[in-house]
């Protein structure tokens, strides 16, 4: 944006030199990732691969390796691009961020963080310092389904799914989008259908149809709202089919 002279800030603060903002550690069932942790580091982290496989899958969709060398998890979440994968993962895993400012620190849940196009509930003087994601249970099924024009592009639409089951029942379903709406959102009505009716084909189809109905899709020269709505249904269905077959 600066190169296009869309923004010309009077001053920039470089966070890159703060060493203790980049880390990945597990504490009491939660993976804590420092906000300045590079996406590349997340990509190759054994902790992430083992404990947060949804994140491991999603991060591979982010642009290309040279971008991931510099892009950070905190940066992507704070920037809140509608088509970014990391806000979607935060939503799907019901994560939270630690925001710090002159007034102190506070926790912001994913559901309360993303407000709209490139907008979060962070105050002007707040900084994300940490991202917290609960360990995914070993038996959780998961999938990220993304449709983009080229590999590595911002998603035209993407759906992340996490499901847990007990026998025929779906005990927990979480669905989140990227690219469809101005901000990444949970498809709660669709989740409820699965938690009520299980993960059979007709439940999945019903959930996918509901997902498509409940979104208010973006429209731009890349894709119409109708098409994004259509993709929401298709990708929700595909994500759920894949997620349920993980175990």
């Amino acid at each position: 944006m600066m190169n296009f002279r869309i923004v010309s800030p009077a001053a920039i603060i470089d966070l890159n030199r703060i060493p203790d903002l980049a880390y990945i550690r597990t504490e009491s069932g939660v993976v804590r990732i420092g906000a300045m942790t590079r996406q590349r580091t997340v990509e190759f982290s054994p902790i992430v691969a083992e404990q947060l496989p949804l994140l491991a899958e999603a991060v591979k969709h982010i642009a290309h390796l040279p971008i991931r060398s510099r892009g950070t998890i905190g940066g992507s979440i704070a920037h809140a691009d509608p088509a970014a994968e990391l806000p979607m993962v935060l939503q799907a895993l019901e994560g939270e961020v630690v925001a710090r400012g002159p007034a102190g620190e506070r926790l912001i849940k994913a559901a309360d963080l993303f407000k709209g196009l490139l907008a979060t509930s962070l105050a002007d003087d707040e900084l994300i310092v940490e991202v917290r994601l609960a360990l995914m249970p070993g038996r959780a099924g998961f999938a990220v389904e993304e449709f983009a024009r080229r590999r590595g592009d911002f998603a035209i639409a993407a759906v992340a799914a996490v499901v847990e089951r007990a026998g025929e029942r779906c005990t927990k379903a979480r669905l989140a989008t990227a690219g469809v709406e101005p901000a990444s959102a949970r498809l709660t009505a669709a989740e409820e259908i699965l938690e009520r009716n299980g993960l059979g084909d007709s439940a999945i189809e019903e959930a996918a149809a509901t997902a498509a109905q409940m979104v208010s899709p973006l429209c731009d020269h890349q894709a119409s709202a109708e098409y994004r709505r259509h993709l929401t249904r298709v990708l929700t269905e595909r994500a759920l089919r894949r997620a349920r077959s993980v175990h």
Partner: protein
Amino acid sequence: MPEPIPIRLTVNGERFEKRCEPRKLLVDFLREDLSLTGTHVGCEHGVCGACTILFNGEAVRSCIMLAVQADGAELCTIEGLARNGEFHPLQQAFHENHGLQCGFCTPGMLMVALDFLRLNPSPTEQEIREAISAVLCRCTGYRDIVRSIAAAADKMRMSSAVTG
């Protein structure tokens, strides 16, 4: 106009101490202040990859970094690949396999390939294609670049097997 900021960095093994405007792009700094014009500007908005260099060993797009961010860093550019005028195996492979035509994206391709091959010394063709999808080429259609990198990977694996 803000004060120029001093930066100290190492590029291709050589140490530099310079001052520059805080808003100066890293790629412009390399090209203008260090006269290393081998790294190219293709879009200036971080998409085409022609400006890719190694920053502390990792491929990055230097047109969307500020020069001041390189203070204390070790950079590698295309000018640093050859040793005493002798081609690096990647350069040799590009030459033998027609991996370049106009040469403008080539610095980006070489630096991405270097980073990628360190992470994945025995890649499949698909993996090479995915890795170089980080750099746009308009001349070659990519086939000969993929072949070049595959050939270089073979060579580099063999020579590291020999030297242990």
